[in-house]
């Protein structure tokens, strides 16, 4: 890794951060700013592209290239950039409304193509910037400004959705856990292709405490099922065992340690990662965190550029004069 002698300060822009006091976004931003020097990529080769929403202000606060685009469409802009400029490191910053509601289509297609994008999905299970309507990840029955009698929608499970799209890297982490978030960013950066990181993020204004159970020191050890490749998946109190095609949460001690699922993040069959993603839904009593899936698959931009290189190697670079006189031609004297 080249030592660029950059520090967190080098990645911090001069813009005043304008999130609400106590917002989980602060912690994610600070972790990112601390992590970037380690990435070893020159500042000018890093681009953050966001959509619309509270989280999408993120690019303004990083002293790299950045674009705050339009609602839901960041993956499209980022795809065009990453495909045509394979020399760049491109991050997409998005939220649950931005990426799973208005931009759902673009998210799944970026993932299925495996474009080299690192997508950070800040999931606070609420619309914050529009002041508190339910989001596609809000739990069913949620009382919000637009659902005074409770929401009726079945929420998306973002991890299941990404794995359904055959994403090659899918992970979950928590805003306040700097160490875990940094580890996850590190793994995502090392991965060639799309990486989706769901970050549970607290909105102190419109959905405060939504993730307390996985953040509070007295509950999180029991709630978080740690996924570490090659190790048994377990929390301080519970573990996972196979139960037919699915996985089941059991109390530690109720089964022999040897029966616990040993995590294989590189399992090529998405069915395993999908089963992991189904262990938790809206309720957070037992939530797998870490890398669900990290498999090798051809990266889209590389394939696009390779196809061009192959054609040029075989046929030579294009000649404009011969292109223009393609097909049947005739001369008028």
């Amino acid at each position, binding site marked *: 890794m080249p030592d660029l002698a950059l520090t967190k300060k080098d990645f911090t822009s001069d813009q005043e951060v304008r999130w609400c006091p106590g917002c989980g976004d602060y912690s994610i931003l600070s972790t990112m700013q601390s992590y970037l020097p380690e990435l070893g990529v020159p500042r000018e080769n890093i681009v953050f592209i966001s959509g619309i929403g509270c989280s999408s202000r993120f690019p303004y606060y990083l002293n790299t290239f950045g674009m705050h685009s339009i609602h839901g*469409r960041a993956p499209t802009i980022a795809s065009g950039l990453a495909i045509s400029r394979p020399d760049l490191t491109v991050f997409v910053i998005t939220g649950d409304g931005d990426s799973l509601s208005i931009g759902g289509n673009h998210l799944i297609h970026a993932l299925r193509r495996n474009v080299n994008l690192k997508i950070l999905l800040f999931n606070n299970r609420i619309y914050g910037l529009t002041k508190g309507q339910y989001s596609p990840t809000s739990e069913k029955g949620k009382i919000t400004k637009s659902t005074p009698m409770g929401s009726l929608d079945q929420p998306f499970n973002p991890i299941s959705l990404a794995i359904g799209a055959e994403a090659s890297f899918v992970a979950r982490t928590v805003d306040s856990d700097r160490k875990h978030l940094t580890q996850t960013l590190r793994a995502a950066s090392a991965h060639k292709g799309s990486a989706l990181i769901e970050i549970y993020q607290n909105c102190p204004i419109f959905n405060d405490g939504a993730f307390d159970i996985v953040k509070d020191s007295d509950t999180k050890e029991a709630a978080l099922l740690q996924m570490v490749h090659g190790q048994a998946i377990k929390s301080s109190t519970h573990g996972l065992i196979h139960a037919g095609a699915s996985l089941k949460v059991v109390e530690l001690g109720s089964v022999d340690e040897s029966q616990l699922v040993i995590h294989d993040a590189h399992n090529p069959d998405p069915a395993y990662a999908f089963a992991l993603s189904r262990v938790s839904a809206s309720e957070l009593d037992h939530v797998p965190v870490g890398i669900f899936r990290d498999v090798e698959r051809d990266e889209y931009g590389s394939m696009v550029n390779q196809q061009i290189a192959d054609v040029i190697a075989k046929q030579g670079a294009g000649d404009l004069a011969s292109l223009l006189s393609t097909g049947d031609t005739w*001369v*008028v004297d």
Partner: protein
Amino acid sequence: MTKPVLPLKEVVIRFAGDSGDGMQLTGDRFTMDTASLGNDLSTLPNYPAEIRAPQGTLPGVSSFQLHFADHLIQTPGDAPDVLVAMNPAAMKANIKDLPRGATIIVDADEFTTRNLTKVGYATNPLEDGSLESYDVHAVPLTTLTVAALSGLPLSRKDAERSKNMFALGLLSWLYHRPTEATENFLKAKFSKKPDILEANLIAYRTGWNFGETTEGFAVSYEIAPAKMAPGLYRNITGNIALAHGLIAASQLSGLKLFLGSYPITPASDILHELSKHKKFGVITFQAEDEIAAVGSALGASYGGALGITSTSGPGVALKAEMIGLAVMLELPLIVIDVQRGGPSTGLPTKTEQADLLQAMFGRNGESPVAVIAPSTPSDCFTIALEAVRISTTYRVPVFILSDGYIANGSEPWKIPDIADLPDLHVEFAKTQEGFLPYLRDPQTLARPWAIPGTKGIEHRIGGVEKADKTGEISYDPANHDLMVRARAAKVAGIQVPNLEVDDPSDDAEVLLLGWGSTYGPIASAVNALRENGNKVAQAHLKYINPFPKNLGEVLRKYPKVIVPEMNLGQLAMLLRAEFLKDVIGYNVVRGLPFTTSEIVEATLEVLNA
């Protein structure tokens, strides 16, 4: 016995058949052979939106019209002199367009009771005398083709499929078309299917020989080459000319071409054509939807590529918000709208010019973009170069408004010398201290094109209003007013050539002012009017936003200005708004190009008023 050969000045032929009969291919081949003979020509394919409507039905009729002449022509012709009808449906769908005395060549084998009933003929028009005023040749095309191929190991169905080549051979004999190019074309097309190749060649030659020997055709015709400027020519459609123009612009600017596109009629051929030319470093990205198509193009443009998206009207509607972002980001972007009949799905395979106001104003806020329009198929090449010049110089989205008529229609094109093409080189912002992403060039008012990867100019942009010079987020009222006006002034200040007026006597009372694909029919009508002693002037707008600087002066000079458009008066509305000139609209929206005669009549009405 040698048959007599009569000279003709021009002919309009329409090939019509079932959509599975290969009429587009037949028309294409006849066109290529005609082009190589040196006639001037213009074509109009007309096909259904359904890929394969039920066989033998009216909705399934596909046709291809070709106008060729020993002099310069501008349109595919108002009415066919010759109709080739491969079945009763093709006859029924096209007979109303034929003037009395026209020649009709039909496949008599297809005129069975069943096929006639299918399209509502109570009696057989070949026998009931209803075609008495036409010169009808009822040729058993299917039987003759199958008989000619009897020696080949083919099913009857496969043998029948070569009947279009029999028809092509017959027409090629009738009009003395050279055969070598078509034979070579067939050899290349069916190189891996020797039986099918043999069948097509035999059918083609048998059709030719049939003309030569049958008593049914007493004479054949010759059309001398047209006088055209010396040079190397090819026949080209608008969509191919646009694609090749964009590749040329990429080479001339040194910018990588990135096309983000979603398949849509009638624009898909641009995607198809560009995807063939990877050896020019062209990237084509078939996106998941229209929004992703334009988004990826804008992303590529942000990275320093030539970002282009191609679509039709419904796609433009979906792209609107992203085009607005490009206006705010002040980045180059080219949006190709090959217009079709609307609103909604409308008439996907038919032509129209009703997206002009959508291109001009179809976004939220004050959101100015450049709008230009090609006037003929080959003009699409030049328009592509202009779109790139404007877009990269002024960092602004540019709309190219083509339409189904010129996108699929073709004409001979004098291939330009590469050395004569413009230099489109662009400068990106360089490493510097105190970089200001929204500092404008005093001449063009463009901001720097500052691409990622350039050290020291890292900055953030976005759709939120920008502060002047710094580009930081700004909600300041005075700044917003300043920026809205700056974006408008930048587009208004785009340098475009003056409008040229064709007015030989310089004292015409009436000016015909068109835009886009109506050039051919208007020019053709102007010729006809002048031949009859009428004084009319013609001018054609290629630059619609901004308008040419002398447009106001031109409008003031002519007491009466007729504006023919394939919409309900969209250019007319802009002209009235901008110049307070009460122009006279002539508007037809049938999904078909104007005929020469209807523009002549509309003009005479104004002249004689």
